């Protein structure tokens, strides 16, 4: 009886969470549509400047672009269509948004995921190496390295990678690596400073023991939270990098959509980005909570 109660409560909690996530994504989409609609240059088309076009054709282009001018009507039609799986049509690319997303999403997802794993592996390895060889030479060289990477504009990193013909995920990894590294290193050293760690040390617990039994549990919740954030960060980094490297993913699409004030495209992209951010953060929160409540 108690078990069933527990399960149904968990079920309700999950449903509630899903609802919240969906609401947030929708709010994000609506807000971004509002932002685009009221930003200068909305409904303006470069082709208006084509000198061949007659007055009536220019007017027709303008009317076509004014179609989404009433936001409330746009929202309503959008949701009505979205219920049938139609996400609207990109104004600038003249293609269904759903089709564009289906083509582009896997490309970005792959480079973001591989990029994150690479960055985490690098950051962890370096932080642990720092623990093992805590000499000042290591300290200085790792500070220099992360300082160097932090200061490099992501555009420069991206172009450098294009130059080397390296894949996009490496550029993403390099952009988020220094942030991860600094945080992880600070966290681990903070852990070593905790009173119970100091006490354990005084009791003569070995290096590995301290690391496994005291440092890791202390750092895990924050690290899991960081995992969520790094997903958001990687996604954010992917936009300029993909645009610069001309990698045909979501990032390149978003940049193109922004330049062209492509309302349907931007709204859907924001929805996706919000979903990714919120879900990854939720997963991070949830797992960190699980671990906290365990001991």
């Amino acid at each position, binding site marked *: 009886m108690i078990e069933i109660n527990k399960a149904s409560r968990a079920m309700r909690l999950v449903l509630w969470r899903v609802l919240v996530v969906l609401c947030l994504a929708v709010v994000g989409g609506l807000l971004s549509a509002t932002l685009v609609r009221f930003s*200068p*240059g*909305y409904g*303006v*088309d*470069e*082709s*208006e*400047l*084509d*000198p*061949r*076009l*007659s*007055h*009536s*054709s*220019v007017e*027709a*282009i303008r009317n076509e672009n004014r179609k989404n001018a009433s936001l409330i009507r746009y929202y309503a039609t959008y949701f009505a269509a979205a219920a049938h799986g139609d996400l609207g049509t990109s104004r*600038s*690319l*003249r*293609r269904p948004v759903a089709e*564009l997303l289906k*083509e*582009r999403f896997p490309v970005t997802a792959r480079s973001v995921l591989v990029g994150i794993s690479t960055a985490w592996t690098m950051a962890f390895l370096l932080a642990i190496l720092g623990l093992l060889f805590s000499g000042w030479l290591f300290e200085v060289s790792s500070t220099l390295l992360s300082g160097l990477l932090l200061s490099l504009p992501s555009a420069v990193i991206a*172009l450098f990678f*294009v*130059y080397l013909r390296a894949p996009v995920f490496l550029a993403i990894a390099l952009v988020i690596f220094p942030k991860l590294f600094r945080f992880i290193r600070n966290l681990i050293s903070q852990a070593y400073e905790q009173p119970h760690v100091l006490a354990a040390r005084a009791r003569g617990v070995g290096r590995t023991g301290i690391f496994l039994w005291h440092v890791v549990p202390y750092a895990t919740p924050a690290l899991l939270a960081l995992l969520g954030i790094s997903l958001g960060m990687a996604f954010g980094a992917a936009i300029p990098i993909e645009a*610069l*490297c*001309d990698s*045909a993913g979501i990032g*390149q*699409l978003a940049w*193109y959509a922004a*330049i*062209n*004030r492509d309302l349907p495209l931007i709204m859907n992209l924001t929805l996706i980005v919000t979903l990714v951010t919120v879900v990854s953060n939720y997963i991070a929160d949830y797992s960190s909570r699980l671990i906290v409540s365990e001991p």
Partner: protein
Amino acid sequence: MKPRALRNLAVVMLLAAAPLALGQSGGVLHFCLHGEPKTFNPILVDDEASENIRYLTGGVLIRLNRQTQALEPGLAESWHVSKDGRTITFRLRKGLHFSDGTAFTSEDVGYTMKTLMDPQVHSPTGDAFRSGEGAIDVQTPTPDVVTITFPASVAGLERLFDQVAILSVHSPQKEMAVLGPFYVSEYKAGLYVELKRNPNYWRRDAQGHPLPYLDGIRLDIQRNRDIELLRFRRGELQLINRLDAESYQHLQKDDPNVARNAGAGLDSDHIWFNEVPSAPLAEYKKAWFRTTEFRKAVSLAINRDDICRIVFAGYAKPAYGPVSPANRFWFNAALPAPKYDPQGALRLLIQAGFRFANDELRDKAGNRVEFTLVTNSGNTVREKMAAMIQQDLSQIGIKVSVVTLDFPSLIERMTRTFDYEACLLGLVNTDLDPSGVMTVWLSSGENHQWNPNQKNPATPWEAEMDKLMREQASAIADKDRKKKFDRVQQIIYEQQPFIYLVNRDVLTAVSPAVVGVAPTVLNPQAFWNADVLQLGPAPQLGAQK
């Protein structure tokens, strides 16, 4: 990635092994489009990427030879324009087929023209034919004769057909069935467009071999020009169009045969002042901008030679009129060359009542003469030009602030709010004929940017320009039209509503592997003769590094 690299290697090795003197048939030419093609429907084309695809795939009745700038028969063996300039009769080649095998007849021409001129379609190509109210009339007495009658005479009528790719009325593939040298076989949005050789293409070379020689063309969609250059240097691409001066220099250092300069192009960069009466600007500023002496002084004080030398590394020519010398027929050679004369500029300004003291220019009322120059962001060349203009004008006491805006914001200011003072922008000229730029010079035009959509011409010289432009459009003989348009060019030179700065050189890069390339100033520059291009066994550029 790997299989492709291997395949490329295999192609290179095969080519190297084959004993050939010059080029030979086959092979896939590889280069980039600089944007996403927005449409494959030739009627709706209005961006450069789509236009390039239309050029490579579309069959046209009359082709403008990009090198000689003369008209040549295409799908039409011959044609005849009536004396009143309203009717054109084509005699079509017999026995031609679309890429999917559908037969080509006069019916297809009629269908294309009717679709093109449908007012609901708003085709930029169709709008160019629109000279008067009313519908067109198309007669197809036999399968190889078609007569098209327009409601009013159309200036430069034949030349407009260079842009009209003929659609098939019966083909199930609709607009994807083409009559040009290639057809679109695959399109991956954001990545590439693949063209394959059209086996039914009508043209043959002098020996009677069918054209095109190439098996296909792969067009990668690549906005980033640095990446394009890099890939070219690695030998992955064989052509680059619209190369910027800096990249041209880098390439020339690698190999002088690769970088090609076709001379000053048709495109121009210019600045203009906002003369719109309703613009939200201070009245005294509007008064300066409307003063001819002020505009002329600004023009005199800009050192165009320096701009050409520094911003374009010498690969541009100072411009002073709306028509580039590259447009051989329409250019008015009688216009005097521009000078750089800051002292003369100051004299003009003082004549017009301005005062110059302590390195500052003030108007009669004592207002400091300063303005903001807007241009589109992300265009380093224009940003550099703006910075140079800033320094040049500071010598005659004018303070210029430069603001870069993203394109949609800029267009909104130019066409809707008119909230700007001066603008630096360029005009891409794809058309040689002045009728193609009517909306720029008519005071009622949308693109009459310094003061668009006027009900009545604001100045006597704009009224005269209106009259001349209308007259040239209804005149039949090109000689008469030229006389009128020469006068228009002179008015623009005298009044400087647009202050022309430079005509950029048309720079392209061509791999030694491509045989038969002859880049021209007209679009599509390096591959206008794609049907006769061949791929030879030349070494990869990157190989020697």
